[in-house]
């Protein structure tokens, strides 16, 4: 079946096809359509599912953990402030070693209410123990939600999966998607399984006090689970292509990299723009390729080495910033390539809060890098002071001249 739909509604289709039985979520723009569509599916009898309309994201994640602990396939969806609000329980969800899946629509964080695309929210949740897969198209959102359950429920993994996609660009724009048949999805995704659950006949206690002598091994086990996820993510992508159809790469999705001398590295919808930039650059005689990081956790360390180590210049595009350091994706690409090859690596921090990043802009900066006109380290080439900033500044100056804020 072919549909033209928003990315959010497509995500809901993934949840429906995965036969999710409990959904707990709190509405936040730009994620609301996901849960609205799921509610409609349930109301119309198309999903056998309990929907818990919790009163906050913190509660959404608590209910999700609890329902997974009872041995039921569970789902939630959030964005930005919602993800930040449930941060404590992101750790709990990963530490409890139960499969679950959540969609996060990548959105900017306040202050200054901004509902547009930005990767700060998910990248700030990087070290919680969640697998993070970033999508670049509507079809990929659908296919990834289904694959996410397969990955999360793999006995070698047992970690939660966050399926991330960009606010507005992917969440709200309409694109054509192919909806697979339920039979095909069922062949790919067996019924829910987990390594433990709350069982009335075999009562166990989860999560009481644990001493220093015992704790490290628990974290090491999570580390191993995340390492194992590398192969499991790849296998899920391949098997999905065979059983259901649809393929969007594995830990990375590479484009034009085979004969490339230089590369762009990006995530999410900005990678689609970078792909157009690659074509423009090649037309101008610059042999660029693209590495789209699909799995941010586990990070594609080997893939980066294999694809980027032999190149001359690598330009990373970051849609977030680690204050006091640099763009987080830039840090990770550099760390992966440490001791491998001698590519010069640049970073554009751009597109924050949904600012449009055009392929011309990316290509211009790529050429600047080739010509030695781009500084090393994170640069902010799209930053400029506009009239609104000046109005705001004048307000502060007037307050200052009257002795305010002292």
């Amino acid at each position, binding site marked *: 079946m072919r549909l033209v739909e928003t990315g959010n509604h497509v995500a809901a289709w993934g949840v429906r096809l995965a036969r999710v039985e409990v959904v707990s979520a709190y509405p936040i723009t730009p994620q609301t359509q996901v849960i609205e569509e799921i509610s409609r599916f349930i109301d119309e009898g198309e999903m056998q599912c309990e929907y818990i309309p919790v009163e906050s994201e913190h509660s959404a994640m608590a209910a999700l953990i609890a329902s997974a602990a009872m041995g039921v396939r569970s789902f939630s969806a959030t964005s930005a402030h919602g993800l930040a609000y449930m941060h404590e329980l992101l750790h709990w969800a990963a530490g409890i070693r139960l499969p679950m899946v959540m969609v996060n629509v990548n959105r900017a964080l306040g202050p200054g209410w901004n509902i547009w695309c930005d990767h700060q929210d998910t990248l700030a949740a990087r070290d919680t123990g969640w697998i993070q897969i970033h999508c670049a198209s509507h079809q990929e959102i659908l296919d990834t939600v289904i694959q996410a359950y397969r990955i999360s429920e793999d006995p070698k993994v047992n970690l939660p999966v966050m399926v991330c996609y960009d606010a507005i660009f992917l969440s709200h724009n309409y694109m054509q998607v192919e909806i697979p048949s339920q039979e095909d999805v069922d062949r790919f995704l067996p019924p829910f399984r987990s*390594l*433990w659950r709350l069982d009335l006949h075999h009562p*166990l206690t989860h999560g009481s006090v644990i001493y220093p002598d015992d704790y490290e091994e*628990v974290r*090491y086990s999570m580390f191993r689970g995340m*390492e194992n996820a590398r192969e499991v993510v790849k296998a899920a992508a391949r098997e999905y292509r065979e059983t259901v159809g649809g393929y969007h790469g594995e830990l990375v999705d590479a484009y034009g990299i085979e004969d490339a001398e230089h590369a762009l590295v990006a995530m999410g919808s900005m990678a689609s723009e970078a792909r157009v930039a690659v074509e423009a650059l090649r037309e101008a005689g610059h042999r660029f390729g693209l590495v789209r990081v699909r799995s941010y956790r586990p990070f594609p360390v080997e893939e980066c080495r294999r694809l980027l180590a032999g190149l001359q210049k690598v330009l990373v595009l970051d849609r977030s910033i680690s204050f006091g350091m640099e763009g987080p994706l830039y840090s990770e690409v550099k760390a992966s390539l440490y001791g491998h090859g001698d590519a010069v690596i640049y970073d554009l921090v751009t597109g924050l809060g949904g600012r449009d990043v055009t392929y011309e802009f990316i290509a211009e900066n790529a050429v600047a890098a080739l010509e030695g006109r781009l500084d090393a380290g994170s640069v902010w080439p799209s930053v400029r002071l506009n009239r609104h900033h000046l109005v705001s500044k004048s307000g502060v100056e007037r307050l200052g001249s009257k002795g305010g804020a002292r």
Partner: protein
Amino acid sequence: MPKRKKKEAEEIGFVTTLSVPSEGSAGLTGSWRVFIPVLDGERCNKCLLCWIYCPEACINKDIRINYDYCKGCGICAEECPRGAISMVKEEKKQ
């Protein structure tokens, strides 16, 4: 990726914070005791108040006290309506 020091770490596999129900989960808590409850069976009429009030479930319905785990809080002696339980300073075995 951090290097692993020991090969045995490879074999740790799935470890999570699951605990198994067990008596004596905090050890032989009877060792916490300073005063020991002593029951005068003659006076006891098995009203069961000590049984239900014991915070540690150390007294059974036949009013037998499990000294392995009794922490010596003294609630049973305090609450016994017939004064059938007395708290006696315990001579610790060395």
